[in-house]
């Protein structure tokens, strides 16, 4: 398929939803970028994300597969893939691990690379497992309080304190 604006092949297939109606656009990379950055200069990176996502989705998850994928939720922060697609923001560091398979092509699309070549932090982020565990426990504690299960909340609070002290 050719780009609607020029002779190059269309690699971006964008579906616009407006007032209940939807229209499809088929564009080459350059025209897709122009289209997506119209009137949102501050949104540079985000619109690029939208473009990359649109492309990835068009590479065609069948509706059924997409539905299944959308409902997957990170066990640490609770964000679903649908939430991510909607707002373009992830919920916690663990999402990069949990949604690895889905994010990988997206990241390759945005950056052209998938391996970090830059600096490393002074303090090793070792024990990632334990780190994300803290996020999950804080979330569970909030839920426990919401359900007025104060015993469980107290247990979790003590546990969080213990892990925090271990780490600092």
């Amino acid at each position: 398929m050719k780009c609607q604006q020029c002779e190059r092949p269309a690699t971006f297939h964008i579906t616009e939803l407006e007032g209940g109606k939807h229209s499809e656009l088929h564009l080459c990379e350059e025209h897709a970028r122009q289209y997506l950055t119209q009137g949102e200069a501050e949104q540079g990176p985000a619109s690029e994300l939208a473009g990359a996502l649109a492309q990835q989705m068009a590479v065609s998850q069948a509706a059924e597969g997409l539905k299944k994928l959308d409902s997957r939720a990170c066990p640490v922060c609770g964000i679903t893939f649908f939430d991510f697609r909607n707002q373009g923001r992830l919920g916690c560091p663990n999402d990069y691990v949990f949604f690895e398979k889905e994010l990988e092509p997206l990241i390759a699309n945005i950056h052209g690379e998938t391996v970090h070549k830059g600096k490393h932090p002074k303090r090793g982020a070792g024990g990632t497992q334990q780190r994300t565990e803290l996020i999950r426990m804080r979330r569970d504690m909030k839920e426990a309080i919401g359900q007025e299960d104060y015993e469980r909340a107290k247990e979790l609070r003590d546990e969080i304190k213990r892990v925090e002290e271990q780490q600092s």
Partner: protein
Amino acid sequence: MTVELNDLTHTIGEWLRASGPQADIVMSTRIRLARNLADFPFVTKASEQDRADIERLLREKLLHIKATSDEFMYVNVGDLDKIDRQFLVERQLISREHAEAKGARGVVIDPREQVSLMINEEDHLRIQCMHSGLDVRGAWEQINRIDDLISEQVTYAFHPRLGYLTACPTNVGTGARVSVLLHLPALVITKQIEKVFRSLQKISLAVRGLYGEGSQAMGDFYQISNQQTLGRSELELIEQVGDVVPALIHYEREARDFLIKESQQMLHDQVSRAYGILRTAQTISSEETMLLLSKVRMGVNLGLIDDLSLLKLNELFIRTQPAHLQKLTGSELTTADRNIERARFLRRYLNNEGNGGLN
């Protein structure tokens, strides 16, 4: 802390000092790093309590870092009124998103306004360094040192293969955005600017306007920055942006030479008219002010105006912004009143009637 914030209204900020290399064309160089704490959800998924904890934790650690000879100061952005938040946006110390966000958030700044550390923006921490003129190396050395000092105090979310983890995958890896703000009026007049944009996009650099709505730049100011953050080292990224700027400076100078040679009269007339309007107008919008100041700035650089310095002009750019005007007058003004106040300020300042009655 508001007392200290008010003090800033009488200063101008490092990036506008017009003292760095190529400052006639390059206004400023800015680098920012996106960082997150390893054991909290990203800001989008953080509860109110989480945000408050992140804010407290980072504030305590950041205020004790000895990164500059001056003490850092802390501004609780959540506590500020709209004008003060807008004021910080105009000085580029916080982003528009940070100003408009909800919940616990703040910014740590050094009094010279070279360093700003935003807490709870899109990421837990956005480290930013701004230098006058073209100085990607200098800005990088400073920000790298600050980042190292912080990372001795807190544990960042970091993945061995993906690097620094960020709320948006467009920032993952180095989390680094390197931007250079350029004043390119001659390329605009000679209609070569579109060509420049296209070639920059081909090498994956983003271009956008300063304070401008949409992609339309205001007053011929353009910001160029890297889009890719993963798969290249920080040094490669700063080189990618830093290497292309001298070429743009060269094109802009060529276009200026061409204009001086081919149409000096037309140019001199345009510049003088712009200067005339700024000195006599009774009411003027910020858009028109930016456009006219841009022309006058070019006139100063080409020697067509000799009674104004770049520093003074940069000062006018910042002080005629809406929040700055309102802070100077000490009251909230409607758009119409601002336009009158802006014109009055410009008349006083440019007609040598004291320093606009400010200091």
